Each structure stands twice: as structure tokens, then as C-alpha cells.
């Protein structure tokens, strides 16, 4: 191989980009040719200095970069998803509110209805065995004075139950006295 032919192949030889046969031919020529050896050294120096760009000192901004990429990729979908989530929460809140309100109203109505007839005791009827359940008296506006589970409400119920028991006891005594007469 002539020097001109080898020099044409040196750029690829320097980067091992020739096939095996060509590599061997160039290698054997370069080993015996000082000029081609110098030329090859120049190419190898270029390959070495290029390596200085392999790992440059650049700041690590991967966190910020990822945030921007994430916004770019998922950002377009985010408003729709957020709106759907907001609508879902709103509907859920309304439904839960309706359920709680309905249940509370039903319970209150049952309590009021169950206490009303039992408060009226027939003179001829025997005394009821268990004391009646008493709901707090509703004012004219329909709103109870206390909340259902408050301590005041429970105290009022206990007082009323005691009075009812006292009245029942007196009624039973009067009935017994009447029978004796």
C-alpha cells in the first residue's frame, strides 16, 4: 500500500472504523513509515481532545427540567382532570349532605311522633310498663331547643321521665284506692 492510499484511510483507521483486512494493511504500513505514523498520531490527538467534550461541567438542573417536561406532557390533561375531580367532590358533598339531612329529619320526626301519643294516658287503661321516650319540645318555629345529643337535652329527658314515673305511681295508687272503696 502506498503512503497516499494509507493516508486516505487513516481517518477511519484512527477510529477503528475499517474492516479487519484494511485495518491489518494500514497497520503493517504505518509500522514501517515514519510520515504516516506522525499523521496517525495527529488523528489520535484529535480523537483525544474531542473526549474533553464527553463530560462537560454543566449544572444539574434535572429537577427543574423534569418539572417543565411534566407540565408540558401532562399539563394539558391536568385542567380537565382537576375539573372532573372538583365536580365529583361537589356532587359527593351534596349527596352526603342530603343523606345526613334526610336521616336527621326522619329520626327527629319519629321521635316527636312516638312521644306525642304516649304522653296521653287513658284513665281506664293500665299504666305502661316502660317509661315513654320523650323528645325535646319544639318551639313555635319548629326548631328544637337543644341538639339531640346535648347534655341539656338528656337531663331534660331524665327529669321528665322521673315526673312521668311519679304520675304513674300516683295514678296506680288512686286506682287501688278506688277499687277498695
Amino acid at each position: 500500500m502506498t503512503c497516499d492510499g494509507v493516508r486516505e484511510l487513516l481517518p477511519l483507521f484512527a477510529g477503528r472504523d475499517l474492516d479487519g483486512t484494511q485495518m491489518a494493511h494500514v497497520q503493517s504500513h504505518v509500522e514501517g513509515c515514519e510520515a504516516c505514523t506522525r499523521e496517525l498520531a495527529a488523528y489520535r490527538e484529535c480523537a483525544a481532545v474531542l473526549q474533553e467534550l464527553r463530560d462537560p461541567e454543566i449544572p444539574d438542573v434535572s429537577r427543574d427540567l423534569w418539572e417543565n417536561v411534566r407540565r408540558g406532557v401532562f399539563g394539558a390533561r391536568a385542567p380537565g382532570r382537576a375539573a372532573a375531580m372538583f365536580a365529583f367532590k361537589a356532587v359527593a358533598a351534596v349527596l352526603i349532605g342530603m343523606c345526613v339531612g334526610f336521616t336527621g329529619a326522619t329520626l327527629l320526626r319519629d321521635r316527636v311522633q312516638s312521644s306525642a301519643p304516649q304522653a296521653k294516658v287513658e284513665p281506664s287503661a293500665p299504666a305502661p310498663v316502660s317509661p315513654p321516650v320523650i323528645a325535646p319540645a319544639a318551639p313555635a318555629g319548629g326548631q328544637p331547643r337543644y341538639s339531640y345529643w346535648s347534655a341539656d337535652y338528656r337531663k331534660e329527658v331524665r327529669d321528665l321521665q322521673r315526673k312521668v314515673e311519679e304520675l304513674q305511681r300516683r295514678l296506680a295508687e288512686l286506682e287501688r284506692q278506688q277499687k277498695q272503696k
Partner: protein
Amino acid sequence: MGPADVRDRDETLLIRRCQEGDEYCFEKLFQKYQRRACVLAYNILNDYELAKDVVQEAFVRVFRNIRRFDASRNFYTWLYQIVVNLSIDFLRKRSSSKAASLEDLGDLAMLRGRGDQRPRGPAGSLSRKEVADRVRRVLSLLPLKYKVVLMLRDIEGFSSEEIAHVVQAKNSTIRWRIHQARKMFKALWNGEGADVKRYLDGSEDDDV
């Protein structure tokens, strides 16, 4: 099964998850390749802020189109293809033809004038940063298509087949460009102005 096979299998799984819209896997894939993509864009553009913009846009495009990506292909050649194309677009927008301008060869006089100080390798008389700066200056004088191929081969270590995928050219064309780019770089690095002018004049001829 070797470590490379495990890596390939893991990456294929990662890509499949990304195709299903898994954000965590998107981030994993991003973290795996973002630095190399940044370095490539920075080396092409010589501007870190622009390089960041390019990489950000490249990953956005990758993730928006990942459903159409064939997971059996090399992910990084696809990513690098987008990074290279976006970098070239940025450069073209910034200046119509900065590279390969013979006016830029004014720098050669400076390179020649400092011939006696020319480093004999990265550990020469110049600091590594000075060497890197000079390499960047020399690379900026190369026509873009040669510069990109030289960087992918001699800095990133891609094979000519991989470069052919990245720049969408024939393998023989890539080998020719590697050959020419190394000649040009050597001539510029050594301040061989006549050779450089000859190479730059004929650089549009891509035939093998």
C-alpha cells in the same frame, strides 16, 4: 442473560409502562437519558440555556408520541434524533449559516499563531477547560452535518449504523462524513488553512 440484556429488558418494560401513561416511568426514562441529551445539545449549540430548551422540547415530543414508538427499537437513537433535529432547527433560526462560513476561518490565524502552545493532548500545557474551549471553537467551524456526525461518533461513541438512524442517512454516507469530518477537524486543529478551505469548499459533496 447478561447485564446488557437485563438493561434492555428493563428499558423495554419502562417504555411499555410509559406507553400506558405511567408518569413515574416517564420520570425514570427522563432521568436515565436527560444528562446525555443535555451534553449532546450543549455540544451542538454551545449554549447551555438553549440546550436546556432543546432537551425539554425533545422529551415533551418523545412522551407525547411514545404510544407510536416501537418498543423493540433503540429508544436513545430516537431521542437523539429529536435532539439533533431540534438543535439544528435552533441553530438555523439563530443564524442562517454560521457554520462553514469561510469568514470564521479568521480564528485559524489565532490557532496557527499559537501553534507552539498547541497541546499535545488533553494533558498538555493548556488546562482541560482551555482545551475544551478550543475544541468547541474548531467544531463550530465545521459544517453542521459533519460536526454532528463527528460528535456522535467520537464523543458519544455511536456506531455508524446508530448514527445513520439518528441523522436518517445511509450508512455509507455516514462513513464518508466521519472520514471527512476527522480530516477537517485535524486540519483546523493543526491550523492547516489550505486544507480546511479545500475541505469546506467541497463539503457539500456527500457522495461516497
